[in-house]
């Protein structure tokens, strides 16, 4: 699949934003590390919303005909893309309510504040899941049609969100051990899920072949001619292929930048609180996640490639 930068940025940025928001709410409810003040919760939540909005705007940039984007809310009952749109928009009023109530910190409204925050957190989780399901629901792409995809999206979003929250906690001068533990847990979970994913997609399993695609199952089938002189929409969108050696190098980068280095550096942040170091780790992990998302698209092979000569996808 062609790795479109707008979609890569969208999934990484809004995933991190939703992950940050959900973990911020949990940290606020549990008063982790002594608890963030109302203003700090509001400021951090606003940062999460910025990441989400930047991602959503980027996703609109991916559309070839964005003037009809508003119609994407209409097929909620069948389309995961529509569901993602609906849930992400439904998230905003609750999230805003939570941030405003946190800012003003009225004790009489504490129950309402926690209730709207809880609703927003639930919607954040459902939205990340829906993003993953857009890809996981496609039977045409074996590398995507697996429950590991929404699981990966949830783990990655929370891992990057947890690192951001750690930077925030360092800035707010809270006890960092609980925040570092959460970040470490999600980084380990994300790395394990990603490792299982890479292991899983390496074997084709019982997938479609050029024989089932053409119906000539009793003999070998070979493409003689694709019937077009230059490329087509199909070759542009689905023909992209990444060299195996290059993919392997990128996977090493994903694990080193996305998981291993952040984990190693977590220890030093917990010992010596620093906003700069926290932000550095977050930036590094996000870079790793961009590489991970690029590979997610580049390694996906659509079955239409069978008609263009691939023996198996």
């Amino acid at each position, binding site marked *: 699949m062609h790795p479109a930068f707008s979609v890569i940025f969208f999934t990484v940025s809004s995933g991190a934003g939703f992950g940050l928001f959900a973990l911020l709410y949990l940290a606020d409810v549990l008063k982790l590390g002594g608890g963030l003040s109302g203003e700090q919760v509001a400021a951090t939540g606003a940062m999460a919303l910025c990441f989400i909005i930047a991602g959503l705007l980027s996703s609109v940039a991916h559309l070839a005909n964005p003037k009809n984007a508003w119609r994407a809310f209409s097929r909620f009952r069948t389309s995961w893309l529509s569901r993602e749109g609906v849930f992400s928009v439904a998230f905003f009023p609750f999230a805003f309510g939570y941030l405003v109530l946190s800012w003003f910190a009225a004790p009489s409204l504490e129950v309402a504040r926690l209730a709207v925050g809880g609703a927003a957190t639930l919607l954040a989780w459902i939205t990340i899941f829906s993003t993953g399901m857009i890809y996981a*629901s496609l039977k045409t792409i074996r590398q995507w049609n697996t429950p590991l995809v929404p699981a990966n999206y949830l783990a990655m979003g929370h891992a990057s969100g947890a690192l951001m929250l750690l930077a925030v906690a360092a800035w707010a001068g809270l006890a960092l051990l609980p925040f570092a533990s959460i970040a470490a847990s999600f980084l380990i979970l994300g790395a394990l899920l990603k490792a299982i994913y890479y292991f899983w997609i390496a074997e084709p399993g019982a997938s479609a072949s050029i024989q089932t695609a053409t119906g000539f199952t009793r003999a070998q*089938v070979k493409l003689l001619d694709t019937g077009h002189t230059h490329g087509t929409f199909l070759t542009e969108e689905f023909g992209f292929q990444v060299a195996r050696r290059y993919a392997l190098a990128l996977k090493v980068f994903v694990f080193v930048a996305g998981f291993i280095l952040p984990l190693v550096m977590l220890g030093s942040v917990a010992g010596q609180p620093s906003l700069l170091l926290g932000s550095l780790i977050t930036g590094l992990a996000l870079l790793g996640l961009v590489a991970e998302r690029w590979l997610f698209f580049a390694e996906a092979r659509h079955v239409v490639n069978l008609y263009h000569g691939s023996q198996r996808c």
Partner: protein
Amino acid sequence: MRLGLVIDLDVCVGCHACAVACKQWNTSGTTAPLTDYQPYGAEPSGVWFNRIRHYEVGEYPNSKTINFPMSCMHCEDAACVTVCPTGASYKRAEDGIVLVDQDKCMGCNLCSWACPYGARELDRESGTMKKCTLCIDRIYDQNLPIEDRQPVCVMVCPAHARMFGDLDDPDSAVSLTVREREGYQLMPELGYKPTNQYLPPRKAKPIPTENMGKPGFKERLKSLANKIVKR
């Protein structure tokens, strides 16, 4: 009613006439235009509803060339319609034709990702998805003579390798042919239940060309001429 095409791989000669006729008709049809990019340039490309590929089945010398036209299969369980977030893609209840409402499409490409047959192509100029309409602007046109009310790819095929009809009706000509010739669907394992059917090449005995018996007068005259004329 479940309208669709039946494609005879036994007689398709791979001339691309169906693709060209499709392009000609539909570039001024309901989802027009079918934009071309650099039509006279170094990298010609553009939107087509029908593409023909060519395969070799078996290993030489025991192999056969198969010409393979593909367009929208108008699936019964059309995933492209399910995934469409705007409702632009829809399947008509009355005849099963899958269409894209050009006024609603936002060009997200998700339907093309969901289609295993490569039937949908984005038009970069309009920013909308386009696909085979089964010539919906011909098959119901009361102004056309009744024999012309079929998709233009079917009309133009010089080898009669394409048939159009109702595959829901067990007694229709297409259903009969599919039964007799053991027609099949492409990639049935994905479960989209494509309506279009493909007829496999027939196992015809080769026509003998040697030991044809006593040569006639014409053959004898030819062989005499061959002896006289030095080649």
